[in-house]
C-alpha cells in the first residue's frame, strides 16, 4: 500500500489518472506563488460513487526541488487538499478547498474545473531561491483512498478505475 502511494508510476498507468497540464511560479511582492492546472478524470465507478454520496479527496503536492547528482533536494513543500461531494438535496456539487471554504457548483464539470485551477496564494520566500542555481517545480495530485469508506478501500487499491492520482510532473525553472 505504501509503495503504491509513494510510487504511483510503478503501477499500470490508469486511463483515469489525473494529469498536470502545467505549473508555473509567479513573482509577487511577497515572494513566489505557484499556479498549476490539473486535468482530473473520473472513471464511471468514481462518478457513480460520487453521486451516491461518497466524498472524493485529492491531495495536491507542490515541491520546489534543487537537482542533485544522486537525488534532488527538496527546498519547499506544500500540500493542498481538495474534496468533492455531491449534495443530493440541492443537486449540486460541493468542493471543499484547502482554505476551509466550500464552493457549490451546479455541474460536475464546473466543480472539476474549479478544482483543476490551483492557485496557491501562500508565497514561497524569495530568499529560498538563488539566481545562479537551477530548480525544479514538481507537482502531483494524489487521490486519497484512505478517506474512502472502509469497504471501498481494498477495492480502490486493486481496481484501476480508482487509480485517479497523477505521477510527478516536473518543470525546470530559472530565477
Amino acid at each position, binding site marked *: 500500500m505504501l509503495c503504491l502511494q509513494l510510487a504511483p508510476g510503478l503501477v499500470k498507468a490508469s486511463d483515469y489518472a489525473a494529469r498536470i497540464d502545467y505549473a508555473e511560479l509567479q513573482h509577487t511582492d511577497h515572494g513566489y506563488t505557484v499556479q498549476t492546472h490539473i486535468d482530473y478524470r473520473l472513471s464511471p465507478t468514481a462518478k457513480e460513487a460520487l453521486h*451516491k*454520496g461518497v466524498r472524493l479527496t485529492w491531495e495536491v503536492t507542490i515541491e520546489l526541488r534543487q537537482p542533485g547528482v544522486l537525488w534532488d533536494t527538496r527546498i519547499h513543500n506544500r500540500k493542498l487538499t481538495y474534496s468533492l461531494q455531491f449534495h443530493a438535496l440541492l443537486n449540486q456539487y460541493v468542493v471543499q478547498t484547502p482554505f476551509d471554504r466550500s464552493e457549490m457548483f451546479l455541474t460536475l464539470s464546473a466543480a472539476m474545473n474549479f478544482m483543476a485551477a490551483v492557485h496557491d496564494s501562500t508565497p514561497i520566500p524569495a530568499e529560498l531561491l538563488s539566481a545562479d542555481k537551477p530548480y525544479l517545480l514538481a507537482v502531483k495530485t494524489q487521490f486519497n483512498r484512505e478517506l474512502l469508506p472502509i469497504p471501498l478501500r481494498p477495492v480502490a487499491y486493486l481496481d484501476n478505475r480508482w487509480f485517479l492520482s497523477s505521477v510527478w510532473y516536473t518543470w525546470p525553472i530559472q530565477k
Partner: protein
Amino acid sequence: MAYSKIKLPASATIILLFGFVLLSLQLMSSATQESSELGEMYSWLLVINTLGSVILLGLVAFNAYSLVRELKKKEAGSRLTTRMVSLFVLLALAPAAIVFYFSVQFLHQGIDSWFNVEIDRAMDDALELSQSSLNQRMTWHIKQTKQMADQLRDKSEALIAMEVGSLWADSGALEIAVFSNQGRVLASSSVNPSDILPHLPDEQIWLLLRQNKEYFAFDPGDNDEMLVRIIVAIEADQSRFLQVLFPIPVRVTDLADSIEFAFIRYQEMNFLRDSLKTSFSLILLLVLLLSLLAAIWVAFISIRNIVAPVKELVKGTQAVADGDYQQQLPVMNQDDLGFLVESFNQMTRRIARSRDETRAAGLEVENQRAYLETILANLTAGVISFDAAFYIRTANQAAYRILHIPVSHFVGETLPTLATMHSELADVLNAIQSLLEKADDIWEQRIVFLGPNGRQELLCRGTPLFSQHGARTGAVVVFDDVTDLIQAQKNAAWGEVARRLAHEIKNPLTPIQLSAERLQHKLSKELQDGSAEFLQRGTRTIVQQVEAMKRMVDDFSEYARPSKKQVEKINLVDLILEVMALYLPSGIIFSTAFASDRVLVEADPVSLRQVLHNLIKNAQEATTAPCRIEIKIAKVSRNNTDYVELGIYDNGNGLNAEQLETIFDPYVTSKAKGTGLGLAIVKKIVEEHGGVIWVDTSYNGGAGFLLQLPVFEFGNFK
C-alpha cells in the same frame, strides 16, 4: 527440568503468535466500525493480517514439504505424522468451512436485509418532499423578486437606491442589491449593516445569468445556514439586475439537512452493498485462514512432539533389528509413551545381556573347538571323522603326514572317491571304508600297505558315533604309523639277540678254539700220519668255524652296539665318487645323475661309506649279468626341511612282495653266503643320521633303493 527449558520458549512463541493474531483480528474488526479511530489503520491492518496469513501459509507449506520429503525417504514416524496431521486438518477444516459458508450466507443476507424497495422509495420521497418544499419556497421568492424588479424598472439609479431599502424592509430578505451588467453595484441593502459590499455573483453565476437572464439557486450561507439567491433582470435589455438573498428558516434547513444526510448515507450504503459483502467476507476469510493456518502449524509442532518418542522407538526397533542392542532411548514424558520407551529400553538391555551371554557361550564353544582342533592338529596320530553316510567331515594334519595326501581338502568326499584319485593308497583306504561300514562297535586293526615311502604299517582304531536316540551319526578313525615303532621293536629284539649271542656264544668259542689247537699240538706228534692228518683237518675246521662264528658274533655285536659317530660336513657327491672308484675294477658300470656337485651333509663318513658299500655290494651280488648301477641325487623338501634324495638302482632280479616286507630285517637274505645284516645295518645307519630308506617300488628294472638324508647345503644345480 531440561524438557521444560526446551518446551517453554516454543509454547511462549505459540501463545504470543496467537495473541498477535487475535489482537490484529480484533483491531481490524474494530476498524470496520465507522466511528472507530482505527479506521485510518484499516488498510494497514488488512495488509498485516494478509502478511500473517502468508507467513503462516509458508510455515505450513514448509512443514508439509518437510513431511513429504520424510515420507519419500521413508523416515521413521513420517507416516504416523502424516496420518495425524491429515486427520487434524480434516477435522479442523470441515467444521471451519461449514461455519465459514453459513457465516458468509448470514452476512450477505443480513446486509441485503438493510435495503428494500420500500425504504428506497421512502428515501426518494423524503428527498423529493424536501426538494418540493424548498422549490416551493424558491418559487415564491422568485415571484416576490420579480415583483420587486417590476417596481424598480425604468427608474433612475437614485430612485432605485431609495426604493431598495423599503423593498428590503417589506420583503424580509437578507440582502437586496442592484448592479449593472458590468457588475457595478448601484444600490444594496442588507440585514447586516456591517456588510459594505453585497454578495456579488461569481463568474459561473454571471455565465448562467447571461445565458438565462435570471438565476436562482440555493447557496450555503454563513453559520451553516442556507440561502436562496435569486437574480433577475430589471430591464429587458439586461442593463441592470436585481439580486435578492432570502434566508431559509433554520428549522427547515435542519430538516432538509437531516433528510439529505440520511438519503446520502442510505445511497452510499446501497452503493457499497457489494463492497461491504466483499469486505466482510474478506475479513471472515482472513479470520478463518489465520486461525486455521495457525492451528495447523501448531498441530504440526504438537504432532511432531507427540510422534518424536514413537519416531525414536521406530529407529530403535530398526537398530535392534539390525543387531544393535545397545539402543537406549531418552524418556521424555512420564506418560504412556514414556512407559513404552522405558519398556523398550528394558527389552534392549535384556536382549543385549542375552546376546552377550550367548556370545560368551559361543566364544567358549569356539575356544573349545579351537582347543580340540589344536590338539587334533598336533596329534601324531591321524584323525579322520565321518558323517553318517561316511563322507569325510574333518581330518587333521597328521593324517596328511601319515597318508601323504591332504585329506582335509577332501571334506565331503568318501574314502573310495579318495582311493580312485590316489591309487597307491587304495588298499588302505578301501580297507578302512570296509571296516567303517561293518563295525557297530569300536574296532582296531593293523593295516600294512606300500606307500610312497615304502612299506608302512598303520594301527587303525575306529569308533562309530551315535546320537542320543541311538542313530548312527558318523564315525571317527584314529590311525598311527607304527612302521618305525615295529621296526624299533624288531631292532631292539635283534640287538638283544646279538648281545646274548655275544655273551653266550662268543665266550665258549675261545676255549673251544684253544682246546682244538692244544689237541692238535699235543696229539699230532703222537698219532700216526693218517690220524694226525685227520686230527689236523678236524682241528683246522674247528678253528675256522670258530673264527667264522666269532666274525658272525662280532657282526651281530656291531649291529647291536650303538654307533659312535664322528659327525662332520662331507660332500656326498665326493664320497659317492670315491666309493664308485673302488668298484670300477670289478666291472660294474655306473651311471650318475646328480642335481648338484656339492651336496654337504652332516654325517659320519665311515658309516656313510659303509652304507654305500653295502648297497653297491648288495646290487653287485644280486646281479648275474654285467652289473649296471645308476646313482641319482636330487633335492627334496619335506616338512619344511631340505633333504638329499639318493637313489641307487641296479639291473638285477628285483624284489618280490614277500622280500619287500622283510628286506631291512636282520638275517633276511636271498644269498647263500650272506649274513642278512647288510641292509639292516644300512637302514640302522641311515636312521641314526635322521634319514629314511625304502624300496622304490615304482622301479621295475631291478631293485631300487631311495634314501633321504637331511642336507646342510645343496649347491647350485648343474
